[in-house]
């Protein structure tokens, strides 16, 4: 009986296309949707009139689960948000709690954090470029190359925390373990290996005729729209807005290193791709400097295991590989669980731009635009 009722309700919300148009559902299981996204596309011939992203297939109620766990138990949960950049998720959460507690972080821990965060950005952008090549029909070539280099970074992460995807590495007041003795040399070796490869990708992709035709001038986002619609990260910078949370709202020790904020020129898919490529170079620059300056000392401040932070609320912001990642954490001061934890995920905000970007484009361009937004569904659906 209940089943019947809900069926009727769903049928009521179905869209019936106008004369000469058709509705096409792409996903939730489709290789080009980067996960479990369903796009309801209204088509006129091969032209997209309207697209409605339907999300929530991976919703696990993260924010509710966090309300029923102690502060420490939430860290491994954050790994499962943006599974391509777990370190960044760890970081935004431990930063929020540290601000509530007022913990001082040892200098060595700050350096280790910057190193793993930037390596994570490198790994995440490598995956993004690889997947993007896949989306654009460059077969598996781009992906094979970028994943070869991404493996090296995952090996590094495995050596410092034992995991390759869900690291659970940062702790309140520092990091879980000191990197092994030969980490510095190993990391430098890996960076030296990756550096020339980035030029190689540029030769493959940025000069490839098919790639250029499919990305140049497609999905143009104006800077004022990007700001008003809440775009984040490479999407925002690809539109030429020179902003980066690492600079404008500084956290840890990014001000100690010499690097630049990368922006794109035209706001199209190619600009967003160019931001990925150039940000990888900047990340390598930061990691190299941090490795050289890595000081000795403790890697973890003394913080009790079962925390009861004072009542209050904080809004912690960092620049994850996908953009401005924030957490709004409310503590009631009486329990050992967060009272409320809200995640502002950059991929969620970027995906909300899709209906705006994919107006009156060809259906093949829709896939190119979606890929350039780099959605990760662990983070969008939470």
């Amino acid at each position, binding site marked *: 009986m209940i089943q019947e*009722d*809900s069926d009727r*309700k*769903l049928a009521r*919300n179905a869209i019936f296309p106008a004369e000469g148009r058709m509705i096409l559902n792409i996903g939730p299981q489709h290789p080009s949707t980067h996960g479990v996204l369903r796009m309801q596309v209204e088509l006129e011939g091969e032209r997209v009139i309207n697209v409605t992203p339907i*999300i*929530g297939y991976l*919703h696990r*109620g993260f*924010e*509710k*689960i966090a309300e*029923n*766990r*102690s502060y420490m*138990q939430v860290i491994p949960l954050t790994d499962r948000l943006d599974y391509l950049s777990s370190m960044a998720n760890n970081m935004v959460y431990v930063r929020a709690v540290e601000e509530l507690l007022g913990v001082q972080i040892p200098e060595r821990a700050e350096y280790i954090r910057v190193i793993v965060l930037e390596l994570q950005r490198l790994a995440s952008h490598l995956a993004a470029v690889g997947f993007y090549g896949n989306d654009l029909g460059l077969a598996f070539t781009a992906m094979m190359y970028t994943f070869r280099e991404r493996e090296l970074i995952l090996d590094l992460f495995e050596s410092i925390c034992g995991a390759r995807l869900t690291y659970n590495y940062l702790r309140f007041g520092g990091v879980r373990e000191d990197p092994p003795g030969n980490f510095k040399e190993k990391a430098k070796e890996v960076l030296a290996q990756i550096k020339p490869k980035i030029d190689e990708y540029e030769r493959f992709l940025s000069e490839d005729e098919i790639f250029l035709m499919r990305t140049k001038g497609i999905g143009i986002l104006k800077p004022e*729209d990007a*700001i*008003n*619609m*809440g775009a984040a990260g490479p999407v925002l910078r690809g539109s030429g*807005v020179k*902003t980066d949370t690492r600079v*404008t*709202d500084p956290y840890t020790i990014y001000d100690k290193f010499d690097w630049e904020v990368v922006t794109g020129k035209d706001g199209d898919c190619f600009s967003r791709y160019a931001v990925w490529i150039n940000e990888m170079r900047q990340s390598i620059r930061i990691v190299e400097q941090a490795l050289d300056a890595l000081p000795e000392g403790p890697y973890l401040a003394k913080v009790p295991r079962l925390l009861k932070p004072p009542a209050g*609320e*904080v*809004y912690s*912001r960092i620049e994850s590989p996908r953009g*401005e990642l*924030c957490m*709004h954490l*409310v503590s009631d001061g009486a329990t050992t*669980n967060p*009272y*409320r934890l*809200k995640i*502002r995920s950059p991929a*969620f*905000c970027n995906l*909300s731009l899709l209906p705006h970007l994919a107006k009156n484009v060809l259906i093949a361009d829709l896939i190119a635009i979606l890929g350039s937004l780099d959605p990760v569904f662990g983070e969008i*659906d*939470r």
Partner: protein
Amino acid sequence: MIELEELIEKFPDAVIDVKIQRERRLCAAVKREALLEVCRYLREHQGFDHLSSVSGVDYADRFEVVYHLWSYSKKKLLSLRVSLPKDDPTVDSVTSIWKAADWHERETYDMFGIIFEGHPNLTRILLAEDFEGYPFRKDYKLKENPWFPGKSPGEEQR
């Protein structure tokens, strides 16, 4: 800070409680009748051009909607709080000011049942259309884990 002083001067009745949390973090509470007016003023005259997130909080006696506004030019974050009574969780939508509010407000509606008046398409976003109840409210009853009978969620892990 200068923004907060000007805000109080401009809206002496509507802006209730202002404080500076730390460097680059400002807080203010606003009465819900004046929300749209205050937001429009903040965007057009104070440079808060980026709506970072809209977050709902369920307190024992009230709902709170927190708008996190960032200014790209001034590099400051303002948390604007609106309190709503439990029996009438209705507030004006700010989608006309920041388009970014669209999905954030839909999510807050989805999870807390807060009605944003004037929103172009206020439907569930993460949950299924036929889902009943608002799961992030504190009175929403979670399912018991069948492996740990009699224990509330979270407790079974300790």
